[in-house]
């Protein structure tokens, strides 16, 4: 019976992986210039050492340029951000035992937004273009926000979940006001600020992927290490403690890890909502609450979801492009409502 479960799990994950790869190939092929999937695969393979010897370069050279310099980094980034946001959401929801928790509720996203917006303003004031300024600021502000929230919530060495959520909501609303204030004073930078806030991947090159990866790897690793502890913590903090989980330590590390991921996501792509809220929900409905299954599934499905959303963002008003945040909200929201209505049981 155990053996059977392992097989079933493995095949499910292989399926999810195939879906992700297929949507990636689709994502690379679709755009203003459409490239057939077979060409896409061949071009991609030609860049893998060892395999390229077996391929003859029969494709149009401009296809290769488009794929390697533009589409490939964009698709990879969308997948990474999708996985990152969804994982961060799963961690916040599990940690807070609250279905409404996500990077927004705890204030991390707002913090990152404030960082980015203040950077845009700063650039216009001191008139120095800073290529990596926006992501760096966004990231630093995100981590600072989580530290602020955690310390506000702390009473006598412990940060109870309820305090964390309240502190998060309070800090988040103050930060949102500051963001609005920045926008109010942004003058002719307003368009840039608004565009960034709406979130998207247009024009993001491979350097953004490199920027994301270190934080992504660290955050994801920490989260996967504590999958079992997250399960125990769903039973409540005291029961988890009684099962041998060092609750405060695990909570602190997971918060930092989720903030790292969120900060990195917001830094490279702006504010993309709904992924962190919906994906963990949907996956929990399908796979159950066990984080050892849930987390990898969340990462894969989150990646595929944002990838497809990005494709839609590119095709809906082609040759123009919608901010992907709008697409995730438009597609994700109704689907989410449908699932909740259909389940009719608890929110979780």
């Amino acid at each position, binding site marked *: 019976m155990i053996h059977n479960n392992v097989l079933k799990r493995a095949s499910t994950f292989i399926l999810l992986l195939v879906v992700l790869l297929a949507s990636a190939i689709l994502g690379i092929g679709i755009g203003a210039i459409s490239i057939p999937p077979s060409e896409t695969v061949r071009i991609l393979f030609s860049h893998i050492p060892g395999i390229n010897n077996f391929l003859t370069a029969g494709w149009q050279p401009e296809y290769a340029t488009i794929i390697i310099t533009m589409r490939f980094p964009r698709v990879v980034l969308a997948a990474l951000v999708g996985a990152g946001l969804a994982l961060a959401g799963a961690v916040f929801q599990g940690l807070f035992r609250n279905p409404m928790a996500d990077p927004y509720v705890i204030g991390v996203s707002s913090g990152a937004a404030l960082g980015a917006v203040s950077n845009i303003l700063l650039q216009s004031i001191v008139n120095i273009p800073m290529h990596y300024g926006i992501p760096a600021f966004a990231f630093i502000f995100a981590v600072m926000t989580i530290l602020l929230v955690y310390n506000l919530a702390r009473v006598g060495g412990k940060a109870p979940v309820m305090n964390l959520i309240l502190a998060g909501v309070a800090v988040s609303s103050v930060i949102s006001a500051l963001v609005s204030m920045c926008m109010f004073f942004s003058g002719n930078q307003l368009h840039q600020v608004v565009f960034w806030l709406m979130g998207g991947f247009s024009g993001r090159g491979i350097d953004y992927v490199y920027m994301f990866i270190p934080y992504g790897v660290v955050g994801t690793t920490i989260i996967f290490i504590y999958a079992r502890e997250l399960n125990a913590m769903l039973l409540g903090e005291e029961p988890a403690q009684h099962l*041998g*989980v060092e609750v405060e330590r695990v909570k602190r590390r997971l918060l930092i890890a989720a903030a790292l991921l969120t900060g990195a996501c917001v830094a490279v792509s702006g504010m993309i909502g709904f992924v962190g809220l919906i994906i963990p929900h949907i996956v929990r409905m399908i796979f*159950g*609450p066990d984080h050892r299954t849930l987390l990898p599934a969340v990462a894969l499905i989150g990646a595929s979801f944002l990838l497809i959303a990005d494709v839609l963002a590119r095709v809906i008003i082609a040759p123009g492009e919608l901010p992907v945040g709008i697409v995730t909200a438009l597609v994700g929201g109704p689907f989410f409502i449908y699932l909740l209505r259909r389940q009719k049981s*608890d929110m979780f």
Partner: protein
Amino acid sequence: MLFNILGVTCGYGASPVLKDASVQINSQDFVGIVGPNGSGKSTLLRTISRVLKPIHGKVLLDEEDIYQISAAEVARKMAVVNQEQGLNFPFTVKDVVMMGRIPHLKRFARESPKDFEVVARAMDLTDTVILANRQVTELSGGEKQRVLLARALAQQPQILLLDEPTSYLDLNYQIEIMELMVRMRRDCGLTIITVLHDLNLASRFCDYLLVIKKGYIHAVGTPHQVITAHMIKDVYGCEVRVECPDSIERPYIVFNGETKRATEGGERWVHVVGGGGSGVQLFRNLLNGGWQVSTGVVNIGDSDWQEACRLGIKVIEAPPFCNVGANEAALNKEMMQKAEFIILAGIPFGTGNIRNLESVLEEAERGAPVIVVDNIDINKRDYTGGKAALLYKNLLQSGAQIVNNEWEAIQLMEGSAVNAI
């Protein structure tokens, strides 16, 4: 010594809930923590379960301060069953029980066949096998409690701490869980420390009881030493009777409510003509209402007679199975004339006690304040071939007050006092 609690003061914020508590608990002890709500029982449990660090003092487990060793190390020795809580996620029952293995598993290690074996045994012991594939969110309170107990047993602990494990359970499961604990103690060498609300359950199953009153340990000892009417008056502030047939049986508490004895009765006197159990409840209600009560004539051994003797009520008695004689009837009428009211309960009449009815009728016709409780049709309780029914009919027309039940009788009497004033 397994557990050594040394001068522990603990609580939340600045004000300590539990003050300077010291207890030693030996291996395989079965200890009950009892006390009123808010006395600090659960706080003590949280402190010794490594959740609430004491402000002063130490908790030593096997000579080691539990706040100096890791949570996992403590969890391998000690399992805790909290009050039903936290099962709000759709894990299956077997998943939740398997979580009991967390302290024993290395990071990323899969559960081994041994872990499955331990879990199966824990579920078997707690009667949760049939629930294995159900989601915990769908279970009743009692089922959840048993699942939590299974999870605790899956930890294979030496010590089991429980916070009111029986509070959500039906009577049969309360006893079953306590008996399971006794068995686990014997077979697996478990030490059990449990907060209990039910003093009788605590007395019945625990070796030692720890009584907490307002943050202090009030008493420690065996149930025989601790469960006394005096202690309960002291700690809970209520009057009870503690019965203990012999030194083998555990003492148990009987709530004697606020029933007063006849000796404590008030100034006003009421005479009840009853018999055959019709007076049992009425006597108590009258005594509690502050009345002096007398009754008669009843046969010795009759249930009203027994109750009257128990409560110390004046009773005019006739020998067993004999008719009411002239002497008794005279004494009875004497009582009726002294009393402020005479109540005739809805009793059956036979040749034995028809004289009582005659006495009441005579008094009523004399103008005495007779109250007739007319709750059952007289024809259904006339065993004299119509004689009693005739007398009864006369009684109803004699000016006696007619009421439908005992409460109306008492109301009537109390109301008359108000009128008199």
